[in-house]
């Protein structure tokens, strides 16, 4: 019998405020699984946290190859945090390839946990090492735990009678056990999870448990007291929590919007990384009467969504950047016919196919301008994983209220990152009003609501409202085809004004930090977390920086100009070459500066903090 580690004698333990750990191994090593178990445990333990998986670009690259490395990072803290951590404090490397790919991110002096069993000459060669880094001194800048994780796992697991291959495959649990010990985590949920997951195969379940404990015990016995660290629970606002990724939250938000509006959800999509998740998630919601439609391409998906809109469904089409380009003409048709529709774009690194598994914010200008002629749409972007839920609802609200397509810009980072999230109270969420025209009296398909400028929504099936819509220019009011020059100008203006009016229903942009001053960091989308962290760091060091985050890109909140006017300098960090920057400069004629990173990776807080410091020094110098 394996003794419960909790009962062992514990060496002294050190407290830390925040720790970031990265699990890295071959695709086949189960690192995502280990990371997810660690996350669940951490959640229950009560830390705030943020996670980010890093999937290999290949489906299943050759075992041991650099291309096959898969990683999962978690940052957990006793305070509120906003990012999965800049550089890991500890790196678990299950093989040489994992070490090679991830080492450069480890903090100087950080902790390396290495599965020494995997450092065979074959594996070293596959990773491109000419000598063994474990012995050639090249890792001397780091603290190191080199453990025979495979051996430990195999020995522990074999006792249960599983075969050699099965025993070997438990090594991720062995590593996890060791990390649990290092960070003094409980293991209850993990044990429960194993029992549930392998309930049809108790031997495997047992093998995994033994391997987990073997790892834990290894920590206990291997004189690692110096590395024994605890991160106390955070004082999170009370409530019921779950953890959630941005893509999950988006799917749930759409489903909830269907509930709040009473409309049937129709999601039409063509698979594309990183948006496929949402299609797959929603395809699993048949019991919620969700209809998913896997179309033959992105154009068809957009067309199907628009057709369903015409029929009154809550229509959404999801894609990533290249797919958004393909949907352009159909979105233009939705603009012209003034039908509601949500277009979800989980942005990824481009141009062209680019780096499909990497993040970027490169589609903002495409969302705004990527259609022929004057074709204004509403564009919004969630700030965090959890915010995807609320902004998805907002997208639906705006689309329905204003009879307009709404483009929702998420990205790979937001889609995949996870964070603790307060389970929303359905009853507390405002209903989404849905207008329906049924009265034939005086019906004109392109008359307008005086407040929103929305046209009436008359669904097929409504007697007496039979009418035709289309992409040709329509006469204001009647909707008949019109080539009249003045009418065209009026319609162009009306469509633009309608989008502008959306600003009447969106919240003001808020400033975090001093409400006026030298420096405002303005942002949108997934940079929110890194900027928030950076600003807190800067503020902690006495630099008086403020931040403002835009969830609404078109139209902007009405107070934005006024807010910008209160600051001497505006810094706009973006994972693109300056999209929001262009819009802000053009609209407000202020000499805002960009901080642009287009590497396929999100900003680290440090990068932004450094930019803030540099700029604020320059500002002081200039005085």
């Amino acid at each position, binding site marked *: 019998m394996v003794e419960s580690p909790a009962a062992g004698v514990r060496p002294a333990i050190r407290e830390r405020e925040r720790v970031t750990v990265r699990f890295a191994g071959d695709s086949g090593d189960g690192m995502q699984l280990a990371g997810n178990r660690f996350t669940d445990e951490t959640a229950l333990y009560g830390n705030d946290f943020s996670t980010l998986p890093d999937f290999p670009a290949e489906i299943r690259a050759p075992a041991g190859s650099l291309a096959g490395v898969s990683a999962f990072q978690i940052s957990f803290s006793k305070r509120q945090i906003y990012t999965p951590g800049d550089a890991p404090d500890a790196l678990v490397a299950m093989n040489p390839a994992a070490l090679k790919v991830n080492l450069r991110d480890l903090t100087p002096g950080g902790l390396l946990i290495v599965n020494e069993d995997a450092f065979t000459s074959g594996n070293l060669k596959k990773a491109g090492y000419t000598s063994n880094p474990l012995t050639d001194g090249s890792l001397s800048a780091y603290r190191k735990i080199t453990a025979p994780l495979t051996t430990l796992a195999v020995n522990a697991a074999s006792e249960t009678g599983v075969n050699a291959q099965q025993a070997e495959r438990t090594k991720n649990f062995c590593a996890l056990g060791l990390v649990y010990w290092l960070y003094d985590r409980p293991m209850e949920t993990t044990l429960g999870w194993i029992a549930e997951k392998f309930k049809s195969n108790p031997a495997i379940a047992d093998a995994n448990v033994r391997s987990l404990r073997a790892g834990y015990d290894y920590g206990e016995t291997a004189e690692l007291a110096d590395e024994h660290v605890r991160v106390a629970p955070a004082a999170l606002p009370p409530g019921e929590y779950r953890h959630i990724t941005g893509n999950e939250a988006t799917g749930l938000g759409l489903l909830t919007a269907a509930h709040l509006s009473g409309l049937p959800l129709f999601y039409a999509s063509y698979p594309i990384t990183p948006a496929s998740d949402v299609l797959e998630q929603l395809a699993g919601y048949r019991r*919620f009467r969700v209809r998913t439609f896997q179309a033959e391409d992105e154009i068809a998906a957009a067309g199907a969504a628009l057709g369903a809109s015409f029929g009154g469904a809550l229509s959404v089409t999801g894609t990533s950047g290249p797919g958004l380009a393909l949907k352009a003409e159909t979105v233009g048709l939705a603009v012209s016919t003034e039908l509601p529709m949500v277009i979800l774009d989980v942005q990824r690194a481009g141009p062209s196919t680019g780096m499909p598994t990497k993040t970027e914010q490169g589609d903002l200008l495409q969302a705004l301008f990527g259609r022929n002629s004057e074709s204004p749409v509403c564009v919004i972007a969630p700030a965090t994983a959890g915010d995807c839920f609320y902004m998805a609802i907002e997208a639906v609200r705006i689309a329905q209220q204003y009879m307009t397509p709404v483009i929702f810009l998420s990205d790979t980072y937001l889609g995949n990152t996870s964070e603790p999230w307060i389970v929303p109270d359905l009853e507390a969420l405002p209903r989404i009003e849905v207008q329906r025209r049924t009265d034939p009296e005086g019906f004109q398909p392109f008359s307008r609501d005086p407040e929103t400028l929305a046209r009436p929504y008359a669904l097929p099936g409504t007697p007496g409202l039979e009418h035709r819509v289309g992409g040709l220019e329509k006469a204001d009011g009647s909707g008949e085809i019109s080539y009249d020059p003045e009418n065209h100008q009026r319609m162009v203006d009306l469509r633009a004004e309608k989008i502008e009016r959306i600003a009447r229903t969106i919240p003001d942009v808020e400033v975090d930090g001093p409400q006026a001053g030298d420096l405002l960091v303005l942002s949108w989308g997934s940079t929110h977390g890194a900027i928030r962290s950076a600003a807190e760091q800067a503020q902690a060091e006495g630099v008086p920086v403020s931040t403002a985050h835009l969830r609404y890109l078109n139209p902007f909140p009405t107070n934005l100009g006024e807010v910008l006017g209160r600051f001497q300098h505006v810094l706009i960090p973006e994972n693109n070459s300056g999209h929001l920057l262009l819009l802000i400069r053009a609209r407000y004629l202020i000499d805002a500066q960009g901080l642009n990173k287009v590497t396929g990776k999100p900003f680290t807080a440090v990068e932004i903090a450094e930019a803030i410091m540099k700029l604020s020094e320059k500002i002081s110098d200039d005085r």
Partner: protein
Amino acid sequence: MTAKTEASAAPMLTKKDFASGAETRWCPGCGDYAILAQTQKMMPKLGVPREKIVFISGIGCASRFPYYMNTYGFHSIHGRAPTLASGLKVTRPDLQVWVITGDGDGLSIGGNHLLHALRRNIDINIVLFNNRIYGLTKGQYSPTSEQGKKTKSSPMGSIDRPINPISVALAAEATFVARSLDTDPPHLMEILERAAHHRGGAFVEVYQNCNIFNDGAYRDFTDKAVRRQRMLYLEHGKPMRFGDNDELGIRLNQLEPEIVRLDEEPTAEILTHDQHRADPGIAHLLARMSYPEMPVPVGVMRDIEEPIYEELLDGQIDQAVATQGPGDLPALLRGDASWRVT
């Protein structure tokens, strides 16, 4: 009957009720007028109230059609009508959804959507006006133009081999495939009515004369004087016979169709037309018969029953609700690993 809209008890409508009153904008003499007239005449027979009917089109002369029907209508973008129709029908099975398209709209830019809508067997009716030319853009060759055709964009003759719309529909395993022509109103109306009644995706090719850019494209065999000699009117369960006195028949020789003179060979084994054959082999043979070698077949080439996409989808929903219970949104939001912070 969930797929096709139920006949209502409403008073019988007339042809006029289906005219929107919008001024038709086709060239005088265009074959599109005849198709419009037959459609408007046919609609009342279906007993479906106007508000339950939607016509969706792409772009082209043909695609102006919805404007003239006093039903719901959507003049969409070039080639994409089948996608809008699919999304609409899948979410609103109570509607009767028609797609009106042209040879360019449906087979050039929109060929893939046509193929996929048909292979999914979504219960929509697709009518393709084949004038073998791009009308609206003023006369370039289309995917159905004959090789060698001289048009504005092929002054020395088109070098593209034409697409056969019926072959494409059959390759998609469409469950209803038919052909008719603008100049035979009763036949056209009958075929449109059959398409309307078919449960599943229906495809109808209509030979249509563009008197401006491709006048007389079909005249050689559709002309009233020669029609019976040069066209084969298919009827289910009937032998494939044609000729002024039905003196000609089609039989297979070495698996290829050939014409046989029944007055000379009265005992020849003439093919009998079977619209309900699961195997589309014969339909494929018919699709490829063309004048002058062979008579041009019109009528229903295939009419079979298969499960309908939107019914299968709704079936999954019902099954999920039945087996897993109706979705519990609060539980789903909570997920299976929530925790409380107090």
